[in-house]
Structures are given as structure tokens and as C-alpha cells.
């Protein structure tokens, strides 16, 4: 990821039509990148396949080894990566717009941790074993955590500032992590099941996970993408947004529902993955500027590409074993986070 200090983030505004064409071309390029990353993700692994073999296997599904690897292992895994990336990228963008906060990320603000606690409780107390079973729990947990974090941070006169949000997110995450650990320590089977899920991993996710996650994520993504204009208004401040005829309260509720749907499902499917929702919108902002309609579209394409790419990196770096994708995103994302903090002025968006 690019962490170079940007001197001019805003290019001189060209003619609107030219700018739109440039952005459209850029979006197509991003789509191509996503496609390439997905194909690479189908090729790379402990048993590497040539592009031709992958295409063959995709065209007719047989009983040979390549077919099995592609259809049963790598295709569902890549699909989960695309879905979770889409969800986390959009959720991060919406949260950054909604809270006017460059440090907003579902992982850092404790929302993934809320979903994680709920899933841990679901597994250990209610014996839930399928992702479809996790999902409702994850929604409740994500919603509760989001409410607590936002509530704590917005106490006081100046409302939820970036710093306060990040701190209360860290606090809530710490609190919930203790709960998770307390539950985990009571049973070894839970440890063996959850230590992988808790990192955030795409490995071993079957096609049934994809089928269960698709619905909520599509709904959440549609809601998020519809918010572009509203977020542009909010970026100017609540009062201006109101003066422009927006119903600020309603926008907040819709955005909250979208974030909970997206984060809850992504966490249930792939575990709590941090920093995707932070890094991708910032990268996109470099190219797009501050227009949230484009920003959302770019995040929706770039975030899956980023997450799947991180997954591929995790498979290559630790070959023949692999690194969970949550670890790779943390290693890439934490420096970006620190860079944003260091560029002091970015603390107000």
C-alpha cells in the first residue's frame, strides 16, 4: 500500500465530464485488478496450478485433483474473501463518512469484537456450529458494541471526535477480549475451534458459508451504496446537511443498519478482520477525492481485491503453510494507521 506523504491530495478540478470519464476508467481498472487477484488466488497455494489448469477446471468440473482444489477449496475461499472485503470496505467508508473520522474502522472501533463475543457465546453456550447460526448473534453483538462505543465517545460537548472514538473502540475491544478469553479458557474444544476463527481467516470456508453470507451482505452493500449523496452532505457538518434538506437522523439510522449488517456478516463468515475498512477508503481517497459516491464504488471494488491479495500473500509468505489473512491485514494496516495519526491534520476529516 502507498504510505508516501501526499502533498497534493486534491488535483485541480478538471471539466466534470473529463473527471467522470477518468474516474470511470479508474473503476474499470480496479475491477480488472480484482479479477486478476481472484484468478491468482485460485492458482496459488500449497499445490500451485497454472492459469490454464484453473480455467480448464472452471470450465468443466470433474473429479481430477485440479477440479477438486479449485471448486472445493479455493473458489469458496476466494468468494468469502470477496464478500468479506466488500462488506468491510463499504462499512469502513460509511463509518468514516458518518463520524467524519479518518480513523474509523470496524475492527478498531470494537464492532468486530462485539460480533466476535456474540459468536463465541453462540458456540460455547448454545452449541451453534454453522455460519448461518452465527450470523444473528453476530448482528446483535455488532449492534451492541457499536452503540456502546458511539455512546461513550459522544459524551461531552464536542461530540464523537476521532480520538475519542478510537479510544473508546480500543477500550471496548479490550473489555470484550477479556470476555472471549474467559469463555475460551473453560473448554479446550472451544479453543481449538476458535483460535483460528478469532484471527480472521478465509481458509476452510466452504461454499455453504458463501451461500449464507451473500444475502445480508448484498442488502447491506445496497444500503451503503445508496448513502453516497447523504454522506457528502454530512461531510459538511450536520447543520449544513440539514440546510441542504437531508434528514440527518434517518441517514444515521440507515448507515448504522448497513454497518451492522456488513460487519456482522463479514465477522461471522471470516472472523474479526481489522484495518481493511481503514486502509482501503484512504487509498481510494487519494485518487477519487472526497466525493462519497465514487469513494463507495471504489471501496466496494478495491477492498475485496485488497483482502484477497492479503490472503494470497499469506499463502505465499509462509509456504508451504499459510498466514491467516487477519494477520496480514494487521501487518499492512497498522503502519498506515500510524502514518495517518502522525499526519496530525488528518485527525479532522
Amino acid at each position, binding site marked *: 500500500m502507498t504510505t508516501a506523504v501526499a502533498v497534493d491530495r486534491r488535483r485541480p478540478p478538471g471539466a466534470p465530464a473529463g473527471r467522470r470519464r477518468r474516474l470511470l476508467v479508474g473503476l474499470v481498472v480496479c475491477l480488472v485488478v480484482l479479477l486478476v487477484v481472484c484468478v491468482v488466488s485460485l492458482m496459488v497455494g500449497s499445490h500451485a496450478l497454472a492459469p490454464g489448469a484453473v480455467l480448464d477446471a472452471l470450465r468443466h468440473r470433474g473429479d481430477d485433483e485440479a477440479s477438486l482444489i479449485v471448486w472445493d477449496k479455493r473458489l469458496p475461499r476466494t468468494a468469502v474473501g470477496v464478500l468479506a472485503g466488500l462488506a468491510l470496505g463499504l462499512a469502513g467508508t460509511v463509518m468514516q463518512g458518518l463520524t467524519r473520522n479518518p480513523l474509523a474502522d470496524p475492527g478498531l472501533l470494537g464492532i468486530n469484537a462485539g460480533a466476535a463475543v456474540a459468536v463465541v457465546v453462540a458456540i460455547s453456550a448454545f452449541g451453534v456450529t454453522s455460519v448461518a447460526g452465527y450470523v444473528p448473534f453476530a448482528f446483535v453483538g455488532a449492534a451492541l458494541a457499536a452503540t456502546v462505543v458511539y455512546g461513550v465517545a459522544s459524551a461531552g460537548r464536542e461530540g464523537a471526535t476521532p480520538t475519542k472514538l478510537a479510544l473508546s473502540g480500543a477500550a471496548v475491544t479490550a*473489555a470484550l477480549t477479556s470476555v472471549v478469553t474467559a469463555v475460551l479458557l473453560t473448554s479446550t474444544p472451544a479453543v481449538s475451534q476458535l483460535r483460528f476463527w478469532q484471527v480472521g481467516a478465509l481458509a476452510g470456508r466452504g461454499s455453504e458459508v458463501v451461500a449464507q453470507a451473500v444475502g445480508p451482505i448484498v442488502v447491506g452493500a445496497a444500503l451503503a451504496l445508496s448513502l453516497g449523496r447523504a454522506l457528502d452532505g454530512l461531510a459538511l457538518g450536520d447543520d449544513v446537511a440539514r440546510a441542504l434538506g437531508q434528514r440527518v437522523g434517518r441517514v444515521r439510522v440507515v448507515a448504522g443498519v448497513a454497518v451492522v449488517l456488513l460487519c456482522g456478516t463479514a465477522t461471522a463468515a471470516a472472523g474479526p478482520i481489522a484495518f481493511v475498512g481503514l486502509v482501503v477508503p484512504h487509498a481510494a481517497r487519494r485518487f477519487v477525492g472526497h466525493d462519497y459516491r465514487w469513494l463507495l464504488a471504489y471501496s466496494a471494488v478495491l477492498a475485496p481485491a485488497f483482502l484477497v491479495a492479503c490472503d494470497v500473500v499469506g499463502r505465499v509468505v509462509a509456504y508451504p503453510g499459510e498466514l491467516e489473512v487477519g494477520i496480514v491485514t494487521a501487518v499492512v494496516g497498522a503502519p498506515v*494507521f500510524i502514518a495517518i*495519526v502522525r499526519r496530525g491534520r488528518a485527525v479532522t476529516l
Partner: protein
Amino acid sequence: MTTTLDVPRPDAAGAARDARALRRSHELRVVVVLGVLLAFAAAVSLCLGQAGLTPGEVLDVLLGRGDAISRFVVLELRGPRLATAVLVGACLGVSGALLQSVVRNVLASPDVVGLTAGASAAGVIGLVWLGLSGLALSGLVLVGALASAAAVYLLAWRDGLSGYRFVLVGIGVAALGTAVVSYVLTRGSVTDARVALTWLTGSLNGSGGTALTTLAASSLVAVPAALLQGRRLAVLELGDEAATALGVRAERARGLAVLTSVVLAAVAVAAAGPVAFVALVAGPVARRLTGTGGPPLLGAALVGALVVVVSDAVAQFAVPGTVFPVGVVTGIVGAPYLLWLLVRTNRAGRGG
């Protein structure tokens, strides 16, 4: 204590001296009360357990009498555990109070700013991969804590140290440390992972032996070293300019305090794992009790020790049949406290 308008100057100075003396005696009283409470909690924790002992029996053992069984229970089982709890609590409390004073922010505890995350990462690597224990493990944990502290200090440095930048950079570094920990956990076997997880939560189970000796020796050096810095830090809290005017070299004093804080945190983490939130809670509680201007280092040590001893008793006996690691209790108690602290500082308009 009446200072009417026509009181001449010398008497006003005398009143100020009286007030200072009063405050100091108040501080002394608080310290004594905390000490008594700690002694009481320690006595109770020596009596509790499967083999219940009466206070008289415990006293007998401590005076060198008593029968073989109660001697074994007190001196071999509960005593080392209690000593570890007291020392770990004191180290963490002082470590947090030092850091909070230097950064001038109550949120800057070693937990939040990534010191414990770095120490945990090193500790887990030592525990699971290298199979270390005792002195070697302590050394590695110290290296981890120092490395992460250096990273946070350097990355947060930009024309001086801003409290909130320090905390936020710390959160980022903590995320990296956590990633390393998760990586090690997923690599090991389930049994290793569970042992590591218990250590990561902070546990006093099986404390004693060389770990206790290491802890005792290093805290006997580090805690007094920290207490000696109290006066200088109190001056430093007035601001760099005032401190320089009063003959304190600000940057050097700060660096030394951070270093001491890191060493203390590392010593505690090496002995019992990163017991959550003790370092965060002890400082503010002690400052509130003593009401002094400067960093309440001695008070923080006592509060930290008290918190760990009581939490450990709760962790052992709250749920019959299950001995939780002490960190679970401090985490569940400490996290709401942290949230309350956030709400309160936010209300006061100091929340950044």
C-alpha cells in the same frame, strides 16, 4: 486555618506550610490505610482454600510454629502465590502511574499504548516456540517491551510528545503485537495454545520458584528507583518550562521515567503474564485517594497490589471448581472502569 484579610504576610506563609503539612499527613494516612487493607486481604487469601485454615493457624506458621500440613499449605502453596500477586500488582501500578504522569494522560497505561502487547508477543514466542521459562523468558519479555516502547516513543515523536498521539500510535503498535500473538497461537498445538492463552490473560497459577525470585529481585531494584523519581515528575507535570526553571532536565527525566515504567511492566508481565487493566486503574485511584498534585507512586503500588490480591482471590473461589486466571477478573472489572473514565474525561471536555 482562618486567613482573614488583615493577617500579615508571615502568617500567610505559615498557613500555606500548615496546609502542605496537612496534605502530607493526609497522604500518609491514606498510605497507612491502604497498607492495612492490603495486609488484611493478604491474610484472608492465606486462610482461604481447599484446606481452610483459621487465622490463628496461619499466624502460628508465620511465627515459625504450626504443624507440617499447614506449614506446607502456607509456605509452599499460598505464600509464593500471594507474594507474586503483591509484587506484580505493585510493579504494574507504579508502571502505569509513571507513564500516566509522563504523558499527562490517564489513558496512557501500558495496556493501551502497546507495551504489554509487545511484551506479550515476545513472551508467547518464548513460551511456545523457544520453550523458555524463568530468567530467559523475563529477558525476552523485557526486550519485547523495550522494543515496542521505543517504537511508540519514536513514532509518536513529532516536535515533542503529544499525549494523544502517543496513545493512538500505541493502539496501532498494540494491533501489530496482537497480530504476532495470534500468529503464534495458531501455529502451536492446542495444548500449547491453551497454556499460552492462560499466560496471556495473566495468571498466578503455578507461581513461585525461579519466576518469583526473578520478580522479587528485579522489583526490589525497580520499584524504589521509580519511587525516587516521584518528586521530579511532580515538577515535570507543571510543564516543561517550569520544570527547566526549577532545574529539572525535562527530556531526560521523561526518558528515564518511561524506561523505568517499561522495565516494571516487563518484570510483571514476565512473572504473571499481562494482567489486564491493573496498571491503568491503580494510578488514577491512588491519585484520587491521596489528592496530591504529583504522581502517587507509593499509593499506586499499594492499590495495584490490593487489586491483584483481591482479584486473584475472586478468580480462585468465585466459581467453585474452576480457577480462572486473575486477568479475567481484572479485565472484567477494569474495562467498565476504563469506559467510565472515558465518559468522564469526555464530559470534562478534555477528551481530545
